């Protein structure tokens, strides 16, 4: 590519990242504020021989990417609000059947139809717990378009590495914000490709038997190994079973493969954290306002720092605990009623020092909003 500098919306940065990662198949259903992801892919994917499909609803879109993933394709869907709710059952299926796929949710205000064109970050817990049954999931986020690009690539890499769905949780502000991105040259960001089994035809292949390193080599539908894929508890061949030992083992495996790798998956950024006595923790669009506050107050002698989370699930609790150890106060900046704050409270040594700076009216939280709450925490009044 001659010109690799682009001026794009966050949603388009996501598309660029997906194409860079090798996306082959996308299916979706239009919904604000994620629609541009579908529109750009409708344009771009077929031009590189891939397939874009507008399905009859979000349920079908989620199911279709799972089907395509089983033929060896890199797959993605994108949605918002109500559409994310509709995808939950099939997302749970992808967790159970260990299907690599990326699910983008550009968050809008909820519940229900809510506030379609306005910003919110209130789907953090839905991403984590939106489905029935015990399970773990990977969820990434980003606050600027370059990071959207990179986190999208990361989402594909993690999906392939751990054979799991990855939720990319963006928000309306980032999704619709125009910013410069630099598209790296091919090879600059390493890509994880599908790990396929080396087991030869005629030799027993176990699609659900993890190797020693925990990875599960796959075999594409249409290839020489025929096996079963199901949402029921299943044995190492993929066949349904209610054997308590197998059920227990599979449930443990599904959770452990994510939670035991929380450190490896922890992506975050630090700003002025070295000597920070008051820590802000934020993510997505909120992190931009939080960073503004930090940079604005530093010259005035306030020792503020920002920890920007890019991995939300599995929650990077070790990182958060370490970074907040010496803080006098920790203020979580987010656009919901304290969803990440709860996780931060559970992670730090002293939950009593964790506060919430939030905004839930559909407008982007501003530096002024955050500063006001910081003053209250400091006992300085408004």
């Amino acid at each position, binding site marked *: 590519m001659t010109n690799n500098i682009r001026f794009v919306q966050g949603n388009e940065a996501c598309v660029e990242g997906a194409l860079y990662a090798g996306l082959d198949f996308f299916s979706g259903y239009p919904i604000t504020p994620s629609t541009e992801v579908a529109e750009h892919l409708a344009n771009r994917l077929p031009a590189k021989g891939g397939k874009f499909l507008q399905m009859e609803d979000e349920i079908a879109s989620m*199911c279709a990417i799972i089907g395509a*993933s*089983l*033929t060896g394709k890199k797959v993605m869907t994108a949605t918002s609000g109500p559409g994310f709710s509709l995808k939950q059952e099939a997302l749970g299926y992808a967790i159970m059947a260990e299907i690599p796929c990326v699910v983008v949710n550009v968050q809008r205000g909820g519940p229900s139809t809510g506030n379609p064109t306005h910003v919110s970050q209130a789907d953090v817990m839905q991403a984590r717990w939106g489905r029935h049954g015990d399970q773990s999931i990977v969820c990434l986020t980003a606050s600027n378009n370059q990071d959207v690009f990179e986190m999208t690539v990361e989402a594909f890499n993690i999906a392939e590495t751990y054979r799991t769905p990855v939720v990319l949780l963006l928000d309306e502000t980032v999704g619709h914000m125009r910013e410069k991105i630099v598209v790296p040259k091919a090879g600059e960001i390493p890509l994880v490709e599908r790990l396929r089994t080396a087991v030869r035809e005629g030799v027993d292949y176990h699609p659900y038997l993890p190797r020693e390193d925990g990875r599960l080599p796959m075999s594409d539908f249409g*290839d020489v190994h025929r096996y079963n894929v199901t949402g029921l508890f299943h044995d190492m061949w993929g066949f349904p079973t209610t054997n308590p030992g197998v059920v227990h083992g599979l449930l443990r495996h599904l959770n452990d493969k994510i939670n035991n790798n929380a450190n490896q998956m922890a992506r975050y950024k630090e700003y002025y954290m070295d000597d920070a006595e008051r820590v802000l923790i934020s993510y997505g669009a909120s992190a931009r306002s939080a960073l503004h506050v930090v940079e604005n107050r530093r010259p005035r002698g306030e020792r503020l720092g920002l920890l920007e989370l890019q991995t939300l699930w599995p929650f990077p609790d070790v990182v958060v605990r370490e970074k907040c150890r010496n803080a006098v106060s920790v203020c979580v900046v987010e656009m919901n009623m304290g969803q990440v704050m709860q996780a931060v409270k559970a992670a730090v040594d002293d939950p009593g020092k964790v506060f919430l700076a939030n905004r839930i009216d559909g407008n982007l939280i501003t530096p002024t909003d955050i500063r006001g709450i910081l003053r209250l925490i400091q006992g300085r009044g408004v």
Partner: protein
Amino acid sequence: MAIKDYIRERFFPHLWCPGCGHGIVLNALLRAVERMGLKKNDIVMVSGIGCSSRISGYVDFHTLHTLHGRALAFATGVKLGHPELNILVPMGDGDALAIGGNHFIHAARRNIDLTAIVMNNRIYGMTGGQYSPLSGYGMLATTAPYQNIDHDFDVVALSTAAGASFVARSTTYHVQQLTDILEKAINHKGFSVVEVLSQCPTYFGRKNRLGSATDMMDQFKETTTPIGSKAKEKDPTLIERGVFVEKDIPEYCAEYDKVIERAMKKGA
């Protein structure tokens, strides 16, 4: 290859009740596949949830046992991901036309090359005998103790209206015809629907006092007739069997190749 080479013998005996029609559908399907000489690696069976959908566990193909009602949506992804594969999608009547009704009509509309087999026993077998959109007016079910007031779909008319390019109906009594029809359906390039009237003696039969499994199969013989028969003229309540629609119209994956061609030309 012999029939038994197409099944996963270690999973037998199957979980269906004695007399259940679903096993006959499995039999007819495997005979069709055998006759066509299809390779096991070239077949994917995608099913939903229900007694009928457990059929995918017994066949030695690539098998994808999905969610209630969503088989066709999963199958659409598989087909577009690997268009050379033959995709068989057996579904229960509730699976295909209640919870999965939307996916059904849209798959038909796209005319994507999938073989949809509706194993119509007019009841929800798996969950214990509740009425389905195919039960019909006046029938009894655990959730229709005072007679069902819902009218049923005509699967053939619905599929035809939705755009399926192959539409046929048979029953578990007419296994030879069923096998022939399934062969044609699999051969057909486009969305094919085969409705199979199948018996659930355990729930539909018992609730509606229809007798044993063989009695129910006798009823399929008595209440159906070949398309356009004289008998139908005399008795319009008879249900017709045979191939209703078989037309050669553009198939979705082939159309998609043209999209890629146009997009690449524009990009170049």
